[in-house]
């Protein structure tokens, strides 16, 4: 298990992360022991602050030699050049190609790893036009974990082989996208018990399918169509009209138009599997737009995730029709 984790993290770092980091940061991170790196979930760079390696629920700092240090005074401090160079490498000198993503405060690199950005927002007509003077980067490592949705599948597929409308709920960094990715793969592939269904994926942030030049770099099954880098609401309707999917999957609902598109999909007889940020159902009920979907019981199943005891823990599976808890405890994907 640990060996697999070591191999996986080495592969992610070498193929996707090192190519977008300046040389001195690569030297530092590659010198850190795999004992720590195997649990790496985020790399955080902030100007004049220590380089932080986030490992699940804790984080570590390292000195310029790549040794883990407790005292932050001994840690390597990131500078403006680190951020600039990283940004240049990530965007491949093509910031214009990430204009839409930059406006939302992130960009996604090859492998589906999302890079969060902070800086000064430039406002035009009340909307964020772009970000300038970037001062912080959060490199979130995406992992493809095949089989992590095994325990959810029996709860969301009926005996007739239909996929129930499913909402995955969790705070950030609990494995929503990883589980959604595996759900898509399993629904698309089918099994001995149920047949595979055509799945349409609207990948607004290029995280689910990790597309490179429009082609998915992860396994999403043989019946999956991906609409990459397309706004959710628009994409869901486009897919329903053009690709006749049985299931539409998308990530992180939130805006009014997303909710409208989900409603349209459900009315068109297409199942929806999606995710939303939130801690529990009560909290979501009070949120605009999402609360409306919950009140009207548009979804059949709610899957609540947590990062305790570790990322990817299924806390509860709830049947929305009678609010019956189908599973409670700590299933670890």
């Amino acid at each position: 298990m640990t060996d697999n984790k070591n191999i996986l993290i080495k592969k992610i770092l070498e193929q996707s992360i090192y190519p977008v980091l300046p040389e001195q940061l690569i030297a530092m991170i590659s010198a850190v022991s795999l004992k720590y790196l195997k649990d790496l979930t985020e790399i955080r760079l902030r100007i004049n602050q220590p380089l932080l390696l986030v490992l699940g629920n804790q984080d570590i700092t390292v000195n310029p030699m790549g040794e883990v240090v407790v005292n932050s005074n001994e840690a390597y401090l990131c500078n403006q050049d680190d951020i600039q160079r990283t940004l240049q490498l990530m965007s491949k000198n093509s910031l214009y190609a990430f204009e839409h993503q930059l406006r939302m405060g992130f960009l996604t690199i090859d492998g589906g790893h999302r890079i969060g950005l902070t800086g000064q927002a430039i406002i035009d007509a009340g909307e964020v036009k772009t970000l300038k003077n970037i001062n912080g980067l959060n490199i979130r490592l995406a992992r493809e974990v095949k089989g992590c949705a095994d325990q959810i599948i029996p709860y969301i597929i009926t005996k007739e082989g239909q996929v129930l409308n499913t909402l995955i709920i969790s705070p950030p960094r609990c494995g929503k996208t990883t589980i959604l990715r595996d759900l898509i793969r399993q629904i698309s592939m089918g099994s001995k018990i149920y047949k595979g269904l055509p799945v349409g994926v609207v990948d607004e942030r290029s995280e689910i399918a990790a597309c490179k030049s429009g082609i998915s770099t992860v396994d999403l099954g043989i019946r999956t169509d991906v609409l990459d880098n397309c706004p959710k609401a628009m994409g869901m309707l486009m897919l329903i009209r053009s690709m006749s999917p049985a299931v539409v999957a998308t990530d992180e609902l939130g805006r009014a138009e997303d909710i409208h598109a989900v409603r349209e999909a459900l009315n068109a007889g297409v199942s929806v599997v999606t995710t939303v940020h939130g801690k529990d159902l009560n909290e979501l009920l009070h949120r605009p737009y999402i609360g409306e979907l919950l009140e009207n019981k548009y979804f059949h199943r709610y899957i609540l995730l947590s990062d305790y005891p570790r990322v990817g823990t299924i806390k509860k599976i709830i049947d929305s029709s009678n609010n019956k808890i189908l599973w409670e405890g700590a299933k670890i994907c």
Partner: protein
Amino acid sequence: MLKLIGSLLVLLVSSYIGFKMASRCQERPRQLRQIITCVGSLRSHIIYSCLPLHEAIANSTNGIYGPVAEFFQQVANLLEKNASLTPQEIIKKVLREMEGSLILKRPEIEVLYVLGGNLGVMNCKEQEKYLSLVIEQLERFENEATRLRDLNTKMYRYLGICGGLAIIIILV
């Protein structure tokens, strides 16, 4: 006999120099036109396809051959392999390497440097404005180069032949 062979050689060499200078004079507006076509195509690949810079530059040379296509291809290759270098650094490097084959004057080279300085760092709308400005500047240089070509091509050829004859007369 020796004088005749010597005279013929002088005439051949001077004519060659004259014709060579005339051909350089003809080549310059042609190369400038090709650069304008490439920058125009680059603008389309950036604005409408949002391709990464190296891909956009590589695609901009479709249908173009010779030193200009080679210049843009080399820039695209280096951008892909060395994303840590800025487009300006790469353009400078490639221009230095191709000094002999690209027939460009100082102001045109400066426009290419400045082009590199602003590539990829702005949004699509600003890139479009900027690339249009570069094309306008290059078109002015092209008009001037065409005027010089019409004026000087024949002159260089005649000068080569006549210069050779003059040397022969003086020596003989």
